[in-house]
């Protein structure tokens, strides 16, 4: 079977969660005996590309054994990153699909590559789509209104007109119609979380969205088997991820700095916007219980998660499938998470972790104090994670998609 993967950006140029997902799928399908290729938009300098077709520069190469076709428009349109229509791309995408002759196309993200989807529909090549964020329903991707509030979805564009007035009404209407066409013609729509699936089902009620959880590579995961007693004092809390304001790291610092306890520690792993990092350091104000640890390598994840007690995921936007939370759960590390989105989906407060009111440092502080005063409650939480939370492996995730491809082909 020949499978084309479509994605808005890819390794080695970009490496966020979606690229990881597409790499994992392409790599596993190749291991399962299929012919794969990743088609991606790219941002390399002109000299990188070795082929030209009208307005398009492109090049084929392999990334860790995976064939990649990276292309770029010589004169990208203004709405490159949020538009869903580009007439110049139609002929190019048709030509590529005709050459590649895929049995199936799997879309990891339609941004910048959406005309391939239109061409696939025209050429009757079956395609499936995995939702990885809200881009299809929100040109700003993260469902955040212009005033900073979270939005619950476009509601056929009514909310967009009300909350994000920088977009013209007709533009949003036209965009949502194209999304409906793309979704309606797909042979399957998938989401890593129930939360993201439900958000799309609310907006597009006829849509059937199946959940296939993202898988983890367990070779770096080590189970944290620490046991706690009533009088344990040295509890280590941790944040791991990018340091950006929508991740809510400041909320941890607001909560933590107000807790008077000399034994606890907070480790912050990650890097991010300089201004935000400086803001975080200002809030920490030299508190020697707080350590900024930088970025850790993927192969060190086992040691990192074995050197701490509780992880905090305080995002103030709808995380869809936060990787760090899933890695923590796979490592048997309890988490305190915002009561929102894909975080709350996995955590039942007091059973397999803790939730707090999104954005509320006092609510988070209460959970931290609860753990400091009663560290032994972590034992039951860990036991419940161990017995009740199964985060699949990359192989299991890929197998589930393989079954989908085989049923469609």
């Amino acid at each position, binding site marked *: 079977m020949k499978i084309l993967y479509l994605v808005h950006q890819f390794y080695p140029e970009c490496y966020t969660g979606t690229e990881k997902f597409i790499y*994992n799928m392409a*790599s*596993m399908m*190749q*291991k*399962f*005996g*299929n*012919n794969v290729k990743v088609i991606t938009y790219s941002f390399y300098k002109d000299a990188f590309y070795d082929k030209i077709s009208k307005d398009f520069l492109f090049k084929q*190469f*392999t990334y*860790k*054994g995976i*064939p990649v076709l990276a292309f770029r428009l010589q004169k990208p349109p203004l709405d490159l990153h949020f538009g869903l229509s580009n007439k110049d791309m139609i002929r190019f995408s048709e030509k590529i699909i005709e050459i590649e002759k895929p049995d199936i196309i799997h879309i990891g993200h339609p941004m910048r590559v959406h005309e391939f989807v239109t061409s696939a529909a025209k050429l009757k090549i079956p395609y499936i789509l995995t939702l990885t964020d809200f881009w299809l329903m929100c040109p700003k991707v993260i469902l955040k209104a212009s005033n900073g509030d979270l939005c619950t979805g476009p509601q056929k564009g009514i909310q967009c007109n009300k909350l994000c007035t920088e977009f013209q009404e007709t533009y949003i209407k036209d965009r949502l119609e194209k999304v409906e066409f793309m979704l309606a013609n797909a042979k399957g729509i998938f989401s890593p979380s129930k939360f993201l699936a439900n958000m799309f089902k609310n907006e597009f009620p006829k849509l059937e969205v199946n959940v296939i959880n993202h898988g983890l*590579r*367990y*070779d770096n995961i*080590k*189970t944290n088997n620490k046991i706690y007693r009533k009088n344990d004092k040295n509890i280590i809390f941790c944040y791991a991820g990018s340091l950006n304001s929508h991740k809510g790291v400041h909320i941890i610092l607001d909560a933590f700095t107000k807790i008077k306890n000399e034994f606890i520690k907070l480790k912050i792993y990650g890097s991010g916007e300089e201004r935000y990092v400086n803001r975080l350091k200002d809030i920490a104000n030299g508190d020697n219980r707080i350590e900024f640890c930088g970025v850790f390598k993927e192969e060190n994840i086992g040691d990192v998660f074995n050197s701490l007690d509780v992880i905090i995921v305080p995002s103030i936007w709808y995380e869809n499938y936060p990787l760090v939370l899933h890695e923590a759960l796979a490592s048997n590390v309890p988490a305190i998470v915002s009561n929102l989105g894909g975080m709350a989906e996995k955590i039942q407060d007091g059973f397999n972790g803790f939730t707090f009111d999104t954005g509320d440092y006092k609510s988070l502080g209460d959970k931290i104090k609860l753990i400091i005063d009663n560290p032994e409650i972590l034992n039951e939480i860990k036991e419940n994670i*161990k*017995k009740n939370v*199964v985060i*699949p*492996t*990359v*192989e*299991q995730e890929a*197998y*589930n998609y*393989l079954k989908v491809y*085989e049923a469609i082909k």
Partner: protein
Amino acid sequence: MLQNNKIDISVVIPTKNAGKEFEFLLKTLRGQKGFRSIELVVVDSGSTDSTVNIAKEYNAKIINILPEDFTHSYARNIGAENSSGNFLFFTVQDALPSNEKFLHNLMVFLKNNDVVAISCAEIPREDADLFYRVVSWDHCNFFGINNKDKIAKLPKIFNYNTLRQNGQLSNIACFVSKDVFMNYKYRYSYAEDLDFGIRLIKDGNKIALLSSTRIIHSHNRSAYYFLKRGYVDSLFLKEIFNDFPIPHINFNELVLDMIFTYKFINNIVQKISLIDLPVTIDLIESCIKGEYKQILNFTYPETIDFDENQYVDGKFKFFLQELYNEKYKQLSVSYYGFLINSLLAFLNSTFKYLNNIYEIIDVVLIEDLKICLYKQYALLCGNYLAYCYINNFHKENIDLYRIHEELKRGV
């Protein structure tokens, strides 16, 4: 679909130092849907790591046996005897069900298709090397289960080939009712699953090999492991099938052939290392096959430096070095062996596999291909050494006896 399913199942897993992914296996088994209860039966033969403690955490029934008592049959039989499920699922410590409906799918197939036992194809782990994938693909072709399920019964014409094709069950994943199993149980210290399948079909039963449900399993073993594996496979095929053909091979000639072929692979590896990558598969294939065409121009090597080879493990190199030191005498004639032809047959399979999947060969794939060549060579050496041992069984060849003692252990 089964309605009102209230059937219990026991999963029997022989263990010894099961490794860090064992806990996830138990977790995945505990999370299987469609059964009222799942019993885990762990038969441990002397683990010194946390295997037994992990099994206890997952409420497994633990049966301890002495390491010296372990055989593949004994461990599984004692596990089955101590299980309480209506159904048994035999698996191994490094396998993993592909999803939460895995066991249920096997049982539904068993119920709906009038078969008494089921095994399924494997899908590799993400780190699986090219050699494992080619061999696994070849096996699926041999058994006729690449992309289709197979229900097998006793073939009309039976010989070692048709019996293998129709009677193969695999203990990586073997689903069977307890009643059926207890009437047979496993025999032999190796290939007990094949023997079980053949006895079932000889008694008029049907068994199934599935492609529609697969189990995750693969491991990247060393060339030395495949030397042993090839050796033991051939010994047991002869033990199970009287008609399994054993070529008459002279041990001294085999040593010559082994050393020649090793050097020949070294030459191929050197040659393909000089090619600028990426290139088409055809180019690599014609480069390698070009060497084969000139085989008669090659003479037996004068000396060999085993240390240099980075694609082969130390144990295998040591094994070859000893043979070379003790038995190799250079001949000044053209090559007249047989290993090269066997290797060529494998290469044809390998390139067929590569052409199905890849368009070009890059630096990642070429390294995998080099390792693949040496592992296949090791497997073939094992096969042929076993043939020599079988041929010389009564002649008490001391070298072969020593090799036999070394290679038969620990597979």
